[in-house]
């Protein structure tokens, strides 16, 4: 027994030593993230260029240098990552993938990433697919991947294999600047859509037209009229088509989409979302904040009045994106007014606004940034067929390829062919569309620039009432101050430390503003007492430093 007692601690010690040795050895083994010497071009280039001296077909003889049908002379499979979109449904059911395979010989195996966290982890782990469509990654992740040689550099290949994009970047050098990383090279292609009713308008402000008619009210033109409408909705809840649990005015609080920012804009307080912040705008080349604008105080007080009068549901603070989508698409409708991109085929939504607040300021409505959605298409280093991949990207951007199927959708459902023009249908019949005949839209790559729009596209919706196109041209266009819009400033225009600071300031300041304004709206805090100290509190958190950094990045972009 004594001997056993003596041996036991030694055995324990032996085991611990063994385990630690194993751990030590494991720590000494170099993992997959070993340092790679960057190539002289800063990334991986396709095999076609390295073997350019020999007249061979690219990708080891698999890819045809021209023509889309097919792109490859033997069937290949590429893994493709794409980020999930709740309103897009199940990507795997989309017809377009089958069409791509039939025409080009390229089968795409989709890897749908649930959210941005998964995307960041993919980049951090360097476990990449062959290609990626829209992922919304951090630009710094893309830059790091480019430096590591994980991305195929596209510049040398564009002229021969993606002439559409080559021409676009030559005609639009600013756009080329957007997509370049720090070494001035291109590793990804963007999504470009220059339809003014899309880029120059964020949300439409909708009112329930059926309820308005039942209540015998005219279209609200002022914020006072709007409040009257909401009061009538509340008073008549449970009568006619207005349900008993009707929500007079619904917003998704502090959200870029469907949030309260167009109410602010009606008070002449224009703001755009840029790099994580909502309260900034451009003033003759200078980035400024609306936080100290007294008209913003009036706008918040108006919202507080609506909320405290029971005209806005408390759920505006607790609902998530799913709840918001269910409310905007609910049939029958349960809300009297909301803001969203388009009416989703619901005929009772009628556009209104911007409303006159009576403060002698112009009434605005928000735009989006004209530019590009970065990193809509990337090719990763382990892709055996980078040229075929790039040719596929070109095909998806080519009017003679699959551009219109990818962007617009299908003939008879989303558009009608009238001569050479693709005439977009004003209202899509969603029953015909189903789950598999949806266009990919801004979830992949597309090139809808001014040339394409003028040459190929026709929009009868611009003449059809109650469409976004019509409402933009006839109602909102003159209220959109595009000169106050701050363009997206890619992370490439900031150093690593500046990006860290921007992330910190944006997170802290946005959270503080979100919380503070919410308490003012609910009446839990007094805006009159706290307004004057707001900017000082924000500056303590680095708000002015944040603005200065953004200005620095913007100046660099514009150089």
């Amino acid at each position: 027994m004594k001997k056993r007692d003596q041996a036991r601690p030694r055995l324990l010690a032996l085991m611990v030593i063994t385990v630690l040795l194993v751990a030590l050895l494991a720590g000494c083994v170099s993992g997959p993230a070993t340092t790679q010497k960057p190539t002289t071009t800063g990334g991986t280039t396709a095999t076609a260029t390295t073997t350019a001296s020999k007249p061979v077909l690219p990708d080891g003889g698999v890819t045809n240098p021209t023509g889309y049908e097919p792109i490859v002379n033997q069937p290949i499979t590429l893994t493709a990552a794409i980020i999930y979109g709740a309103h897009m449904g199940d990507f795997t059911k989309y017809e377009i993938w089958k069409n791509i395979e039939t025409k080009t010989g390229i089968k795409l195996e989709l890897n749908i990433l649930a959210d941005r966290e998964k995307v960041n982890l993919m980049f951090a782990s360097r476990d990449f697919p062959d290609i990626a469509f829209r992922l919304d990654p951090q630009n710094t992740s893309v830059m790091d991947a480019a430096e590591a040689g994980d991305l195929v550099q596209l510049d040398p290949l564009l002229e021969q294999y993606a002439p559409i994009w080559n021409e676009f970047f030559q005609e639009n050098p600013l756009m080329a600047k957007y997509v370049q990383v720090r070494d001035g090279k291109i590793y990804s292609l963007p999504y470009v859509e220059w339809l003014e009713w899309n880029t120059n308008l964020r949300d439409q402000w909708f009112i329930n037209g059926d309820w308005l008619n039942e209540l015998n009210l005219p279209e609200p033109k002022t914020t006072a009229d709007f409040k009257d409408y909401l009061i009538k909705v509340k008073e008549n809840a449970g009568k006619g088509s207005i349900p008993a649990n009707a929500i007079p005015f619904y917003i998704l609080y502090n959200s870029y989409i469907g949030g309260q920012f167009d109410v602010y804009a009606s008070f002449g307080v224009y703001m755009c979302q840029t790099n994580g912040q909502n309260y900034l705008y451009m003033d003759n080349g200078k980035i400024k904040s609306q936080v100290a604008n007294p008209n913003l105080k009036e706008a918040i007080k108006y919202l507080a009045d609506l909320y405290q009068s029971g005209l806005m549901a408390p759920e505006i603070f607790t609902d998530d994106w799913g709840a918001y989508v269910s409310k905007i698409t609910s049939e029958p409708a349960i809300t009297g007014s909301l803001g969203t991109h388009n009416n989703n085929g619901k005929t009772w939504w009628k556009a209104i606004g911007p409303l006159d607040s009576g403060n002698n300021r112009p009434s605005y409505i928000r735009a989006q940034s004209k530019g590009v959605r970065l990193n809509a298409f990337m090719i990763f280093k382990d892709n055996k067929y980078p040229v075929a991949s790039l040719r596929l990207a070109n095909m998806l951007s080519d009017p003679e390829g699959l551009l219109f199927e990818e962007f617009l959708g299908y003939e008879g459902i989303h558009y009608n062919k009238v001569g050479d023009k693709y005439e977009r249908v004003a209202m899509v019949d969603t029953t015909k569309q189903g789950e598999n005949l949806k266009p990919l839209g801004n979830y992949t790559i597309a090139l809808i620039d001014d040339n394409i729009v003028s040459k190929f596209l026709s929009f009868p919706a611009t003449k059809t009432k109650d469409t976004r196109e019509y409402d933009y041209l006839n109602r909102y266009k003159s209220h959109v101050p595009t000169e106050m819009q701050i363009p997206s400033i890619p992370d490439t225009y900031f150093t690593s430390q500046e990006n860290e600071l921007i992330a910190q300031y944006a997170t802290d300041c946005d959270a503080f503003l979100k919380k503070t304004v919410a308490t003012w709206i609910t009446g839990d805090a007094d805006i009159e007492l706290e307004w004057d100290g707001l900017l000082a509190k924000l500056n303590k958190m680095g708000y002015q430093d944040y603005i200065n950094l953004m200005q620095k990045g913007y100046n660099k972009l514009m150089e």
Partner: protein
Amino acid sequence: MTTGTIPSGTNRPSKLKQRGHLGSRLRKFWPLYLFLLPALIYLALFHYAPMYGVLMAFKSFKPIKGILGSDWVGLYNFARFFRMDMFRTLIVNTLTLSIYALAAGFIFPILLALLINTCVLRRFSRVLQTITYLPHFISMVVMVGIINLLFSPSLGMFTHLLNALGIIEGPLTLLLSAKAFNDLYVWSGVWQSMGWGSIIYLAALSGVDPALHEAAMLDGASKFQRVRHIDIPWIMPTMVILLILSCGNLMNVGFEKVFLMQNAMNLGVSEIISTYVYKMGILNAQYSFSAAVGLFNSVINMALLLSVNALSKKLGDTGLM
């Protein structure tokens, strides 16, 4: 639980004899050691080997360079965290929520176990046990969904009920109240985990010698007195061990539930270390920063665990180590 030591002055077997002894044990009991081997390998591979990743906290991690190849920045990430405006708020919120959760979550499983144990109706106590530990299997997302459905300001079940009873008029603003956030978080957690947490105490209570209870009954002790003087002292070591382990997790307030319950109105109290690190570190791909904060958390937890263990041993000779 203290390990035995060989008293000084005792004749120790010679090293040769010890080796022989160890060797012969290995030969004799090799199936048992082989049985132990997979667990050791698992521990080594998944718990000890990844420890080198803690270096990320001291580096400016870039995937291109890997953990070992990234630039050394020392305590920069820690200093950055400590200097943040939000630091104090995060610590206060995290500690408030976790101490509250610990205090409430610790007592109720014990009470439930004692109640079930003293219940005369066996079938009833079994049904009660099953019902109380079923919520444990509900996922956190579903749990928060239930909370939102029940307490939704205008459309919630409790809203309608309280309005119908005339207790309130209009919306129920619990979900919007910063003051109510901690209560909602903690008590929904108690409801969910109380039954599961009572299992270990019930297992301990099943070891109580029935003769003790019989003797106490003969002496005229009431049920309450028997619970107080027999059951509670019996499970005291279990309680202490679980308390020490809970203290070791004090800074690890669950991320999922807090994140899902967070909204603009309760952000002042619901922003805790894990949710902030998620927003700052994970969503913005700042992994070194996230690692530094995680390491800070772990060091605090370790210090708390050792302190509480030492205190417990001092007070009652019961401890984890």
